[in-house]
């Protein structure tokens, strides 16, 4: 039966999540939902499977909600990441909604192993991903031939992939709903309200991550101040100042650069009344002066930010927007700043090449190359002198040139980054892919995991190896009490052996009265390996006999048999 609409399953961040992918998801779904030729289904990474997401369209969370799956992924970084990217539920979702086209919008490694999924070869698929550094990630080069269309968010990635022979890759910028971002007429009033008066405000809106070049910006700001001591200037960092684990410890850097706190401002948001304030940073969990709530005021973070109307006000407090970074997928704030009527200073590497130049309403920041130690990718370190020079250039710029540059930026965002433009391009690719014939698929092979060996000879040394018996039962009280009732007979059966019992320490009390146990020892997961315990090939092992009765009852349910199994002999 043919459908009247093309059914597109879009997998990405939840459309209500305030992330680059989340905002993009919201904008494209709202637009595609109204398109008479398309039916959208949302698959949201990070939302538990089964939760009602209350969207106008059919939607599913992709994160596991089953406790058993959650237990299995907990403590295993690779499995947890796969779960966060929806790996364990996407098959059911595809099976349920039977899409004509699968549109995956995520980091490219989110689609690892997707080519081996049963539906992959039967479904048309578009991978729309962010690639932020050179050389292009190997996995992107592997995925590209396995999907029907690969799209990238930034043109530099398209160019690099084309140079490597991946000729069909195209650029579609993430959808920016710029309608909230515009120059405000009451800009001066707003500045007065926040006590900024006639200061020259340099702004940076960012998630506090190490790839945002905060130290470079601070250094550039210091140089600008030294060069222009008569200019009253302030730097507004709209970010999560409290994020010191995965981001920059900004207060420490302020001290290091000799910056008085008053010269660098933060955005505070009240988690109770949603009001925001621009103030020098003075820690987190402050009391709200507006609603009176205690410890409700924090700098903006990924869990709580300001709304788009308020963010536009924040851009309007600025005189220039400066975005130095090592690399990035699209950097939505750059487009938002342009739409809000700001000249943008952007590092001209990675996606910055789509925003940094004069014909794009910006000025480029020069940079030097360095290699990221862990990945060896090329990254940019933005020159503080360039930041200083560009700030000076904007400050001294004629009003005429400034107006032209701002107007160019506003029009550039409308033309290249608007939701309409992005959706129209996407629709073109969706229709194109839907009508394309199937292509051959490549197979991949995985790596074998090395077998780990365990050594605990020192716990057993008082008994000869040939005289040892191990009984393992990690938990729980009832099971250990049951094993307890077998030990006397076990000793009778092996009168010359010594019995070592392994369990978790909290269950020692269930067994340690048993006089036929030689030692009760703490259980460790590594013990669950019979060949390691008893020996194999050149490994002599630790025990003559090891029993792992937990394997068939706790690791695998191998005893239920619908209650129909029988014994031909008496066990009691």
């Amino acid at each position: 039966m043919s459908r009247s609409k093309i059914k597109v399953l879009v997998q990405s961040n939840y459309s209500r999540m305030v992330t680059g992918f989340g905002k993009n998801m919201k904008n494209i779904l709202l637009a595609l939902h109204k398109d008479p030729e398309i039916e959208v289904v949302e698959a949201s990474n990070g939302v538990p499977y089964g939760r009602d997401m209350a969207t106008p369209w059919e939607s599913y969370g992709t994160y596991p909600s089953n406790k058993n799956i959650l237990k299995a992924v907990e403590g295993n970084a690779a499995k947890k990441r796969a779960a966060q990217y929806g790996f364990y539920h996407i098959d059911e979702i595809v099976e349920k909604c039977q899409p004509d086209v699968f549109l995956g919008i995520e980091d490219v490694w989110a689609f690892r192993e997707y080519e081996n999924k049963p539906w992959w070869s039967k479904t048309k698929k578009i991978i729309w991903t962010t690639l932020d550094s050179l050389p292009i990630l190997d996995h992107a080069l592997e995925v590209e031939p396995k999907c029907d269309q690969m799209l990238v968010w930034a043109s530099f990635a398209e160019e690099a992939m084309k140079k490597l022979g991946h000729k069909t890759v195209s650029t579609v910028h993430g959808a920016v709903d710029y309608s909230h971002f515009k120059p405000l007429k009451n800009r001066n009033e707003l500045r007065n309200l926040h006590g900024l008066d006639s200061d020259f405000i340099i702004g940076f809106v960012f998630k506090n991550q190490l790839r945002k070049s905060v130290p470079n910006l601070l250094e550039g700001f210091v140089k600008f101040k030294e060069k222009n001591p008569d200019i009253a200037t302030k730097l507004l960092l709209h970010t999560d100042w409290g994020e010191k684990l995965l981001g920059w410890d900004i207060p420490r850097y302020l001290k290091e650069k000799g910056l008085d706190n008053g010269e660098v401002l933060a955005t505070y948001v009240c988690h109770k009344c949603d009001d925001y304030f621009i103030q020098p940073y003075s820690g987190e969990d402050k009391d709200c002066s507006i609603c009176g709530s205690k410890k409700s005021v924090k700098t903006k973070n990924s869990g709580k930010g300001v709304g788009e109307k308020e963010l536009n006000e924040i851009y309007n407090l600025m005189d220039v927007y400066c975005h130095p970074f090592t690399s990035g997928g699209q950097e939505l704030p750059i487009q938002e700043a342009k739409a809000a009527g700001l000249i943008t200073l952007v590092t001209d590497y990675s996606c910055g090449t789509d925003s940094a130049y004069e014909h794009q309403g910006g000025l480029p920041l020069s940079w030097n190359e360095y290699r990221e130690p862990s990945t060896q990718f090329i990254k940019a370190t933005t020159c503080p002198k360039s930041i200083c020079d560009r700030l000076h250039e904007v400050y001294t710029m004629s009003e005429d040139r400034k107006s032209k540059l701002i107007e160019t930026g506003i029009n550039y965002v409308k033309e290249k980054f608007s939701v309409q433009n992005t959706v129209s391009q996407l629709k073109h690719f969706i229709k194109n892919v839907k009508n394309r014939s199937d292509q051959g698929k490549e197979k991949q092979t995985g790596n074998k995991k090395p077998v780990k060996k365990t050594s605990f000879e020192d716990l057993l040394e008082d008994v000869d190896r040939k005289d040892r018996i191990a009984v393992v039962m990690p938990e729980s009280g009832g099971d250990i009490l049951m094993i307890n009732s077998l030990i006397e007979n076990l000793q009778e059966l092996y009168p010359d052996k010594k019995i070592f019992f392994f369990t978790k320490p909290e269950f020692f009390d269930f067994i340690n009265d048993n006089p036929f146990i030689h030692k009760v020892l703490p259980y460790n997961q590594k013990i669950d390996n019979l060949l390691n315990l008893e020996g194999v090939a050149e490994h002599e092992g630790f025990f003559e006999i090891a029993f792992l009765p937990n394997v068939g009852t706790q690791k695998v349910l191998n005893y239920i048999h619908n209650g129909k199994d029988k014994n031909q002999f008496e066990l009691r």
Partner: protein
Amino acid sequence: MSHLVEVYAKDLGVKIGKPYFQPHYFPIIEDEYITIHTDNKVDSKHYDYWEEVIIIVKSVFEKVKFIQIGSGKEPKIKNVDSFIKTSSIKQSAYIIDKALLHVGIDSSPVHIASHLDKPIVAIYGHTYSKTCDPLWGSKANHCIIESHRNGKKPSFSLKENPKTINFIKPEEIANSILKKLDREKSSRETLYIGKEYKNQSNHIIPDEKYDISNKTLSIRLDLLNKEENILHLCTKNKLSLIIKEPVSDLLLSQVNISSIFYISDSFNANFIEKVKSLGITINLLCSDKEKISEQRYVFFDYRIFLLDEEEKINKNKKKITLEEKDFSLKSYSLFYKNGEVYSSLYEANGKENLDDIFLDLETLMIYSE
């Protein structure tokens, strides 16, 4: 069917004997008591209606005490006479040993009670009881209650929805206890227990000014729109408003309004913005199935859920028949109306309309005596 111990015995190649396990002395002053044990480490094992069991047992055997045992990490059971938290399972074993009977979920205290040859009532839901029921002691001492699971096989899942152990009615457990203690059985019969029965709430139907303080209140302006009767409550309580129409600025400006549940088929955008700007959480409930998709599109930044009362009533009528029955209601909800406090909307409305029960069915326990 193989019991777990038989699986273990076959694995080790030996016959089943008795465990070596000695209780450790623990001072206890009660003499006629029942030990009770629950745990929510495995949610499927945790029974939600122990307090009802205790009420029923005590309605027949008034003197008996219930002593909850455990390490202290377990959820406390309401209505127990004491919760003795011990540092070792051996001390709990001592308390079990001195009890008239032990009642509990499938867990180690049940096995210890059987080792000590105590009368036992044990309940099972997500597993076959025969694979893990009490092993030792006289079988005549054991009463094993397994959920009917609506005829389904056990899930063996750590978390169930619905929880099959809760299918066991409290009077079934209570009467088993009473029988083991040679007492008459109770005449109580549970007809229905709602999934949200244990959720506590205070509903104010603002027909007059109620004097309440330090509570979390649901103000039912959806049932009676008299704002003037609730303003005085705002400073002393935490309020949640349930409304069908936008409310006045005066009410919105009160500091203790934490959330608003707005029921409509077509929401007022200006009102929603105003509520949001005041930092009040707003929840939108669309009362028209036909319009919900459109409303979700218009107010995309809000998660709008469907509230179709008629459908809810009809759906719930299929769960229980109440006509021509004598029944009583219990709930953890309180309804303030006519200057009185009731435990259901049905009672607050003068027991006139059974639909009031079906509307709130999931928050109620319905039983007959």
